[in-house]
Every structure is written in C-alpha cells, then in structure tokens.
C-alpha cells in the first residue's frame, strides 16, 4: 500500500498541536446516518465483564511472580526540608529487607519526565519521597520505612498561591529562583479591548470562584510490578498509556525500547493521573534491575493522596459587561493556579471564557504559582470543569442583574463559530441540548412557589434548579493503528495497543469489528494493553480513545473482510462483490443462497490467517470538532443545617454516534458522580500553618458513596458527527463531569437567591452564604 505523510492537527485539552502522521491505504467512507447496524448501537454487556466480576481480571496490583519483592516508600513529614542525616542501617536489619534506596545510594537515578533525580535531599512537599524500602513482604517493607533514621532540617515553605507569588516569598525549591512555572507567565490572551468595553457597558458584574484541590483517588493506586530477566524488562503498570510508559521506562533505565515491555490488561481507574509509568513504576523497574528479582511498588493510599497528583486549586475572578438586552460586551478573567511543587503546566481554566459565548472583547490572564504541595496532574477535563463552574455561575449572576432568564441569556450569546481561530464548528448541538434539558427538568416552572418551597415558606427546605453548559474536544486523531486477523475457525482477533481503563474500550472495539466483519460479537476477541504484541495507539486520555482507535479498528476490519470475500470468491468461483457475510456465514447477495460458514473456506488455507492493517486517518482541517452538552440540576438545601441534596440531574451531551448505549450511560453517570463530589464534598484539606495535608485517605476525603446519588436522566442524542471520523463518534469520558459542578452551584444559587463563590458547597459554607453573601432576587 502506498505510504504518505500528512500534517494534521490534534487538539488535546485546549492545545492545538501540529503532527506529522504516516498513513497507509485509505480509510473507508464514514458511516452515514442511515447505515444499518447489527451490533453497533445496541446496548452490549462488557466483553470482559466476567473476568471483572469473578476476580479473574489481573490488575498490576495483583501480579505475583516467584521471588517477587515488595517496596514501600518513606514520605516527607514536612512541607519543605533538607535531609540532614539518613541512616538506613536499622531498616536494613529488619528481617526480609533487601535494599533501601535514597539520595545517598540512588541519587543518580533520573526521572526522564522531569530530568531530575528521583531521590533528592531537598524535600518539596508533605509526601515527597525520602527513601524506598524493598523487602520480601509488605509488612517488612512498611516496618522498615519506620526504622530508617532520618533527621530533617525544616526550610521555609509556602502553600498559598498568592503568597508564593509575592515579593520575598520563600522559594518552593531552593534550586529554582522563582515560584512561577516559567517566564511565559502570566499568560495573557486577548481579543478586542476589554477595559474599554467594560467602561462602556450598560451593566457590569464581578464574580469570583475558588475551587479546591481534588484528589483522583483511583481505587487502584499508582504503581507497577517489574521483572528484569537480565536482558529484558517487563513492567505491569497501572497506566493509561502503555506506549508512553514504555518510552519512559526505557529512557530511565537507559535501555533500548525493544528491551522493555509494558503490560496493562486491567487497571483500576486513572482519570487522567496515570498518563505515564509514574515514579512508582520507574522505581519498581530500577529496584528489579538492581536486585535481579521481580519488584512490585504500589503506592499505599496515603502515598497516593500525597504524591499521585491532584486537580489543582484555582482562584478565578470574572468581570462581565453587557448591554441591557443581554448582549455580552466584555469578559475579563484572571486565574491563579496552584500547580504544586513541580508543576510545569497550568490547566485550561480559561478555555470556556475564551470560547463558550460570543464576545468581541475577551481577556484572560493566567498566573501560576508553584507551592510546597503535591504537584498537579490531569484530572478528567482538567481546568474545564473549574472554568465552566466559574463562568456559568458568572453568567447566572449577570442574568440576575439583567432580570433575564439565564438560559435565555445563554441563547442570546450563543457562539456560532470557534472564535479562537475564527472558523466553523463541525457541528454544534448546544441549543438542542438547552431545549431538551430545559424541557426534561421543567425549567419553565423553576420559580413556582410549590417547587421552590417543598415544605412551604416557613419550612427549612429550599429547592433550586440550575444548569451549566459543556464544551470539550474529544475528537481524537492519528496516529493509531490496529490489525485484524481472521483465524481458520471463523473467529477474529483485533490487535491494538490501546488499553481499557474501565471505559469499556475492549467492548466497543469488538462491536465495531464485529459489525464490519459480519461476525457475531462472541467470535471477536480484542487484544490490547501491551507494547510487545500490540501496535501503536495513543494514551487513553482527553476522551480520545474511541475516536482515535475505533476508526483504525474499523479500517482493519473492512480490509480484512475485503480480503476474506476475495479469498472465498476464488475458492467458490464467485465474484467477490456478490458475497455477503452475516453472522460469520457467507451468502450470495444476488440469489440469497447460503454458502456455508466462513470457516469452511478459511480452513482450506493450511492455517493461513487473513491479516489486515488499519490506521486512523487525519482530522478534518479548518474546522473545530467539539462535543457540546448541558446539564440541569435540581437541588434541595436545608437552610437549617446547610446540607445540600442533589435531587436530579438531566444530562444532554452530543458525543456523536453511540456505539454502546449501555457503557455510554455508565460513563455519563460516572462523570456526573465525580462532578457531584467536586461540587459538594471533595477537597484536599491543607493546614496552612503546618503545610500538611490533613486528609490523605478515603475516610476524610469525602468521595461520593451510593447514598449520595441523585436521579440521573441521560438523554441519548446519538447523532453521528460525520466530519469527526469515519465512525461519527466523539469522546464521552470527560464531557459528563464538566458541567455538573457549575449546574449544582447554580441550582444552589437559585435555591438560596445567592451567588456561589467557592466549591465544594459543604454545609458550613452554605450556612455562611446564607448569613453573608449579598442577596439576589
């Protein structure tokens, strides 16, 4: 097949990147709106559900090899300190202990992602790694961490971002002369003239939104098991990207990529925090190579919550100007990011302000502070969750000021085009999402007396309804490859190098292949999650897995089927295009005659397996592909206790064609539930005087339980986006978390007649709001 190199553009979490891609062959034409389907679009139980409900699924945490050792980390109890003495002799004397690594004996082990030593003698945050113990059992390893004799010299620290950026602030890292990320900060985006437009605007408002650090708390912690056999390293990594993990492990150990394989068959959640092999996986690999035995290092829950990343705190200040009729004239946003000790980037909190509403005069200013706290990591729609909450609360406040219905205000300022590049959207169904969601939640009666006061005006319950919009990329892109193999017995194997991080990737890829092959789903097996036998696929992040890998799988299946019908045609002496394959059985299209199962033909080929390749083609140029959506929330607030109960969420998202409505709804529900936690209960709590995290565990970090779940109504739009890719699909992982906190905040604002300024809306803050914040009608 002829090879071409195409330049295409990838958009990942707000950034547009130019990439060269190698393409081979032609993608099949896109599935149209009227394409008939047998498997695609049908609610389908996960193909690997059985392994997951029986305990047979092997996660990285579960890998056990003969002679395997276990590692445990000793973590800094200080927000900033120098190690003045470290004596591991007592630890080494604990029975079963094989090694203790620290800056003293492993100081030259460099993490390729940061270019810095894995073990330093300056500790930058509570939970920074001091030393690693490797022992025969987990108990011995943990015991030995307590036996290491360490003396710390505490250094001045700073945890608040504005304090970190102030003149004369203590340096977060004494080796780095500034507490900002780089001299590219503050980052300013502007179009038009915000100050002039604000000065002339008929109505202006100012709002503020502070969002907390949220901890991913994937139920499987970060880590990996590694086995070095003298020439080859195998890492079972709890990762969202086996290829990236391989590259990092190879670079860290100075090995050629052929000498490293990474395996991730099952993993217990990542939500953006597991894009690579993580320091823990590198340490397992390092120790395994040093000791010549397999080593497993899975973080314990405390280590996880101190050192595996966070959705970083944001402080957002909005100034909006509008005409009396609601036309938005100016939007100014200043954000302060707290990216933690080693943060190298800041999240696109300002993205919604730049894009969501039609506005000629926009300015966003991002300031980023490094602080003596754990470093940020991507967390399900990083920045955009926080930015939508801030912006949509500001829009509600503006509507109140104008005396306008807030949904009407949103419609009035609907942006037809993608304003950052002044080009069209491939499709924008946001107005449909507004209409459908408003109908479902009963927007029209949101102010009705009996709805707002369930126990009457003298009672203690107030209900409110609010909404927020959602925007996200999720269109994926190349490179992504797949191979389809048709086996002699009439089964098929699809090989990719993606991973199923719990989203149901294995299942939707099997559905796509089964559809194109004309095979029943049970006859298709999807192999993924390993570098050695897989073919390149991107990491599972940015809601791009299906939209990237799915079209490659489809193309491989289409090509395999073509070859199959040619082979059968020659064997049966019939023209290939007269052959149809349904249910792995061959039919003559013209006569309708059944010609036997595919295996009847394939078995004649001496074991030959038909093998075909598929590749994700380039993205459409000069157009912006987005998922848009909206969520509507109804909440009940107890004004006596400050407790907020979410009664109902209506979710309307345009995620393109839905391959599997069952797993799609699970994704949407999961996103909403995480968003609900962010809105109401979740936050990393830092004692500012001590610089320490007070709740690095699952008891005090309040993630939602089954008791916190509202009624969730999901509207399935299921409209293929034919511009996006040949499947018409868009990502669904991140969209559902994006509007939930904003919708809940606006519902609480509606219930109380106030404007929310801080998340999470814990009862004490709700009571505070009742007594202090200014009234609104």
């Amino acid at each position: 097949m002829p090879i071409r190199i195409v330049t295409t553009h990838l958009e990942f979490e707000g950034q547009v990147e130019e990439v060269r891609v190698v393409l081979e062959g032609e993608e099949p034409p896109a599935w149209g709106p009227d394409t008939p389907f047998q498997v695609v679009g049908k609610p389908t139980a996960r193909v690997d559900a059985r392994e997951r409900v029986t305990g047979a699924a092997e996660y990285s945490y579960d890998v056990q090899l003969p002679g395997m050792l276990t590692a445990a980390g000793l973590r800094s109890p200080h927000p900033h300190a120098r190690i003045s003495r470290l004596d591991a002799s007592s630890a080494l004397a604990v029975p079963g202990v094989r090694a203790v690594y620290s800056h003293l004996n492993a100081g030259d082990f460099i993490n390729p992602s940061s270019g810095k030593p894995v073990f330093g003698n300056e500790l930058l945050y509570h939970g920074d790694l001091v030393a690693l113990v490797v022992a025969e059992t987990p108990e011995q390893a943990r015991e030995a961490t307590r036996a290491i004799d360490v003396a710390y010299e505490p250094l001045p620290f700073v945890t608040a971002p504005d304090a970190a950026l102030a003149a004369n602030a203590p340096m977060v890292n004494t080796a780095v002369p500034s507490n900002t990320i780089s001299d590219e900060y503050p980052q300013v985006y502007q179009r038009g003239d915000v100050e002039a437009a604000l000065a002339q605007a008929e109505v202006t408002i100012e709002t503020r939104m502070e969002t907390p650090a949220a901890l991913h708390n994937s139920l499987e912690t970060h880590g990996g098991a590694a086995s070095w056999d003298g020439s080859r390293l195998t890492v079972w990594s709890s990762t969202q990207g086996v290829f990236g993990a391989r590259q990092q492990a190879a670079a860290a150990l100075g090995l050629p990529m052929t000498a490293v394989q990474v395996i991730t068959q099952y993993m217990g959640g990542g939500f953006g925090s597991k894009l690579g092999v993580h320091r823990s996986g590198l340490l397992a690999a390092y120790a395994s190579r040093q000791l010549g035995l397999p080593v497993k290092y899975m973080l314990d829950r405390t280590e996880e919550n101190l050192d595996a990343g966070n959705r970083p705190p944001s402080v957002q200040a909005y100034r909006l100007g509008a005409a009396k009729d609601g036309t938005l004239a100016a939007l100014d946003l200043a954000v302060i990011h707290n990216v933690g000790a080693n943060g190298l980037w800041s999240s696109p909190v300002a993205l919604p302000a730049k894009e969501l509403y039609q506005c000629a005069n926009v300015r966003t200013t991002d300031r980023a502070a490094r602080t003596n706290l754990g470093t940020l990591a991507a967390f399900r729609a990083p920045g955009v969750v926080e930015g939508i909450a801030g912006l949509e609360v500001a829009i509600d406040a503006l509507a109140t000021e104008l005396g306008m219905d807030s949904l009407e205000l949103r419609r009035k300022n609907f942006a037809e085009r993608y304003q950052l590049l002044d080009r069209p959207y491939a499709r924008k169904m946001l107005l449909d999402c507004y209409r459908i969601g408003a109908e479902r939640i009963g927007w029209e009666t949101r102010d009705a007396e009996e709805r707002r006061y369930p126990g009457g005006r003298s009672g203690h319950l107030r209900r409110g309804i609010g909404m927020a919009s959602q925007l996200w990329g999720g269109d994926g892109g190349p490179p992504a490859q797949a191979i389809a193999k048709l086996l002699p017995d009439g089964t098929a194997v699809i090989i990719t190098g993606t991973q199923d991080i719990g989203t149901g990737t294995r299942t939707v890829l099997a559905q796509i292949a089964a559809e194109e092959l004309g095979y029943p789903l049970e006859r298709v097996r999807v192999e993924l999650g390993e570098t050695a036998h897989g073919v390149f696929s991107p990491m599972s992040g940015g809601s791009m897995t299906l939209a990237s890998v799915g079209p490659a799988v489809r193309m491989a299946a289409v090509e395999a089927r073509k070859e199959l019908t040619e082979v059968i045609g020659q064997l049966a002496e019939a023209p290939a295009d007269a052959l149809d394959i349904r249910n792995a059985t061959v039919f003559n299209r013209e006569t309708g005659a059944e010609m036997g199962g595919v295996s009847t033909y394939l078995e004649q080929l001496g074991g030959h397996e038909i093998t075909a390749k598929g590749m994700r083609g380039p993205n459409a140029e000069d157009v912006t592909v987005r998922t848009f959506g909206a969520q509507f929330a109804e909440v009940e607030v107890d004004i006596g206790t400050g407790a907020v109960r979410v009664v109902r969420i209506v979710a309307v998202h345009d995620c393109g064609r839905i391959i599997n409505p069952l797993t799609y709804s699970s994704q949407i529900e999961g996103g909403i539930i995480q968003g609900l936690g962010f809105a109401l209960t979740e936050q990393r709590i830092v004692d500012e005087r001590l610089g320490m995290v007070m709740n690095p565990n699952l008891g005090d970090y309040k993630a939602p339980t089954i008791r916190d779940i509202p009624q969730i109504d999901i509207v399935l739009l299921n409209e293929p986006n034919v511009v996006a890719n040949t499947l018409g699909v868009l990502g669904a992982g991140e969209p559902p978390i994006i509007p939930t906190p904003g919708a809940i905040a606006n519902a609480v604002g509606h219930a109380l007649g106030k404007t929310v300024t801080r998340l999470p809306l814990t009862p004490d803050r709700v009571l505070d709001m009742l007594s202090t914040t200014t009234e609104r009608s």
Partner: protein
Amino acid sequence: MSSPSSNAASVSTSASTTTIHLTVNGRTRTLSVEPRRTLLDALREDLHLTGAKPGCNMGQCGACTVLLDGEAVYSCLALAIECQHQAITTIEGLAHDDQLDPVQQAFIDHDALQCGFCTPGQVLALKSLLLRDPHPDDDAIERAMAGNLCRCGAYPKILAAARSLAGRAS
C-alpha cells in the same frame, strides 16, 4: 508518617510465623503466617486469591470485602489468625463450576462495573445483604453498600442490579 524531626523507631516487630488453618471457599488451607498478617494479605500473598483488592488497607473503601460466615467484612481490618473458625468466601468462590452467582450475572447485565477494581467487594457486599434479606428496599441496599466506594461511579447501575435481584424492576 511518623515523628517530625527524626524517623527512628528501632524496635523490630518482626515475629516468627505461626501455622494457621483457614477455610476458604469450602477448602481448608494451611498457611504459615506472621501474626500481623491481615486476612487480605493472607488471601492475596499466601493463597494467591487476588480478587479481594487493597484499595486503602485501612478500612475505608470496601474493595477488600470478603464474607465471613456470610457476613461482609473488610479483610484488611481482620488478622488472618482471627479467622480460623469462620467460613471465608472470596469472589473466586462465588461462582460454581461455570455458573456465575446471580449477583455476578446481575452486575454484568446491568453494567454495574467500570474499571472493576471495586467490583469483587461490591458483589460480595450485595451477596451478604441478600443472604439475610432477599427482598431489600432501596434504603436497605444503600445502607449495605455505603461502605463500598466506587470511584468510577457505577452506583446507579449497582442499585439497578440490586433492585433486579430483590425482585423489583429499576
């Protein structure tokens, strides 16, 4: 995390091993463990039954849930030596031959799992409830399951699976 300025703790608590007998999924198993070994670690490290998951090792997530005489417990909070007189059921022992337990089947049919890391614990927590109350209402289901966190948010579907087993449509 230990003392602020020095981390020294010189007393070794490493102890010799003890022989114990555990009845796991109907079979008696003989193990040699340190007294400090939790039931969770005994199952995972000694018996290679890795279905029970260490989500926190401190009794806060439920991923390690197993049944002791039919009662759901956090196996990370029990010591193995304490469990010698009870029947231990792990997720591996729930299906018989190739026949899944109805709870497992309901989880599959309702897609009551995403990453699946919490799933063995969820299945066993629900199993335990249904053993003592075959027709629980929503409140009973939520009480029984509230100690099993699911970070992926499979709760609505866990509830749907539970309702179907309780004989009620969702």
